[in-house]
């Protein structure tokens, strides 16, 4: 490992726990060190912490408090939304419409729903990664009177494309379909309000905004039928039973509060960092491709680039060794960096090695860090290319 300070540009995978969130979790752990369902004073203290966190998050999302369901994270919330909806309409051949670039938590749940009898329609995306609302109109033409759920992410985790969720939500609801959106990457980075976009279901997770790993939420409009995925107690309206972690919920709410409060400032800063990074990479790497560049809206803190002629693993190792932490699209899965379904959906022809690097900024990312990451990437790409073009030993 080099001696230079390490640079963490993988906040879209996990953004390190904010000190304030850590402090809240520790403080709450003292007063809420009991089961929120217990009928004694200790339990009530935990319940109070939990419910204040729920209120805080509801306020930030401009949603009713009792529609906020705590879950174990983004994957849990996505599954509860998609599979829970489908199972609530078992036997009616519900229609499930998703985009081709959804997170695997949605795609996996949707495929499972299809295996259980739902009809699955996958909406294509354009070269910018965005869904065309007209395609959703067409997809819903086939719904007839069946129950239908549309699930399109607010913003894409691999390339940063912001979807036209307001239009998609309006179309879905006008046609009697329910609308779910995975806002895991969008929340805290761009305005996310259920008053503005009245989605029926919305997923957020804590660890992308500096909250703890292991807790997320599904915001649910009261009248959306869902079948739970696990059965047991009545916690979270019986939709995500199991003892709640009140201290984690409080830390989640604190991280969310800070992320939303900082957002106007970050929204001004991040795009400048992103454009500076793109410019330096473009200057230094012949043939560099910026993904989703033509999109009408992109996440401000995320830049995904492609380097033809180099494979992802080589570039990621070189950056890792130089102390620059980035990833190649989604960090989920097995540590493999290949075969992104998102890039495939953009219609990019695969011919030869093509390294994909996703840089994502956090609240404290500096322009100096971005400059150094760019320089390191340029050097590593040049090295990999010269080795790749040389004849084998």
């Amino acid at each position, binding site marked *: 490992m080099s001696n230079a300070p390490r640079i963490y540009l993988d906040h879209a995978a996990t953004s390190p726990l904010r000190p304030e969130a850590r402090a809240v979790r520790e403080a709450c752990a003292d007063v809420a060190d009991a089961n929120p369902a217990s009928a004694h004073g200790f339990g009530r203290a935990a319940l109070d912490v939990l419910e204040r966190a729920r209120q805080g998050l509801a306020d930030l999302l401009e949603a009713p408090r009792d529609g906020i369901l705590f879950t174990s994270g983004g994957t849990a919330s996505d599954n509860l939304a998609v599979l829970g909806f489908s199972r609530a309409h078992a036997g009616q051949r519900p229609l499930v419409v998703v985009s081709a670039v959804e997170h695997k938590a949605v795609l996996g749940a949707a495929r499972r729903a299809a295996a259980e009898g739902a009809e699955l329609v996958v909406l294509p995306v354009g070269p910018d990664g965005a869904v065309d609302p007209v395609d959703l109109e067409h997809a819903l033409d086939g719904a007839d009177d069946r129950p239908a759920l549309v699930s399109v992410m607010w913003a894409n985790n691999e390339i940063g494309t912001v979807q036209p969720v307001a239009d998609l939500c309006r179309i879905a609801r006008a046609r009697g379909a329910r609308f779910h959106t995975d806002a895991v990457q969008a929340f805290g980075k761009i305005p996310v309000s259920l008053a503005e976009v009245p989605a029926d279901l919305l997923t957020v997770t804590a660890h992308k905004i500096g909250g703890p790993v292991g807790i997320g939420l599904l915001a649910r409009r009261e009248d959306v039928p869902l079948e739970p995925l696990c059965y047991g107690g009545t916690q979270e309206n019986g939709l995500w039973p199991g003892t709640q972690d009140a201290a984690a919920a409080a830390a989640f709410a604190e991280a969310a509060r800070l992320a939303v409060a900082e957002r106007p400032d970050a929204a001004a800063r991040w795009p400048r960092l992103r454009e500076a990074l793109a410019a330096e990479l473009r200057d230094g790497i012949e043939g560099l491709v910026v993904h989703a560049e033509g999109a009408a809206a992109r996440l401000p803190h995320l830049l995904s680039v492609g380097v033809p002629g180099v494979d*992802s*693993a080589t570039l*990621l*190792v*070189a950056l*890792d060794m130089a102390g620059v932490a980035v990833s190649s699209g989604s960090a989920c899965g*097995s*540590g*493999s960096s290949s075969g992104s379904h998102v890039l495939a959906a953009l219609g990019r022809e695969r011919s030869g090695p093509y390294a994909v690097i996703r840089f994502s900024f956090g609240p404290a990312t500096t322009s100096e860090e971005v400059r150094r990451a760019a320089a390191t990437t340029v050097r590593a790409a040049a*090295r990999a290319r010269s080795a790749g073009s040389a004849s084998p030993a």
Partner: protein
Amino acid sequence: MSRSVLCAMSGGVDSSVAAALLVEAGWRVIGATVKTFCYADVPAGTRSCCGLEGIADARAVAARLGVPHQVFDLEDDFTRDVIEDFVAEHAAGRTPIPCVRCNSFTKFRDLVRRADALDCEFLATGHYARTVPADDGTVRLARAADDGKDQTYFLWGIERGVLPRLAFPLGEARKSEVRARARELGLVTADKPESFEICFVPDGDHVGFLRRRLPRAHPAVSAGPIVLEDGTRVGEHAGTAGFTVGQRKGLPGGFPEPMFVVEVRPTAREVVIGPRASLARSQLVAERGNWLAPRPGAGREVEVRIRHRAPLVPAVVEASGPDGFTLALSAPREAVTPGQSAVLYGEDGSVLGGGVITAAA
């Protein structure tokens, strides 16, 4: 800055310990797991050595050792160099060894290029083999200290120029020591069973695998006659790919002596069977050869291995060229199987070269 080595890590115990030994020796190690085929269809919760679990275990070991690790996607190259050859060889009635192709191309060519790109001096693997300096100043490939584990049979196809760049940390080790070391280090792979299956055929059903890749009526995967050496038809088979020379299983019974597959003739759709005596061969031809030492000329006495774990057999080179050779075996051997490798060893035990057996007489 210390010297760097790219260490191939399959997620098995051997390559895990190889990486650990390099770290202990002070090398700057980068772990590389090669993704060779698509795991998307592997159902959740199943154990499969080279699948997702192999990748996950390799990552866990790298994390334990504190070394960087990445998954290198060589699926396209592996498909072309290994899987397509595997299918073509079976289609031609031969019994290929995909591990030889994977070593020749995927590991010791494609991964060496990644080592170059990462400024790594060496590529290391968990193979039981050694590289040793020769008198002429070059580097030779030599058998492992643990003769029972020696894997040089699978390594003859490496380009000779690559040998000086290779490191085999387990070359001097015994398997039992390797497991003990893995346990000491707390590696998750310490007690993992060894895999003998073809990594891209995790269910072991290579005929089923071929069936999905060959035309329905291809002789390798569709019915044909089982015949005696004189052409007498004695039964029917479901495809020649299910048979290899020397095989006894799955043949019709009722003969006075045990019968074996003597030849596979896909163009005639025939599997030829005969008694044990018909298996003996005293000459073999190998093609697609590769030399890891100065090429042995006609008349040179060598030792040859014609199957993994088969004993070494004295032989004399009858002819040799850059891409192949003909050998006279000192005594007739049973089951000299087209598609398997013939690997030649010199008197000092080093690998002279090898080739793919195409004919035997």
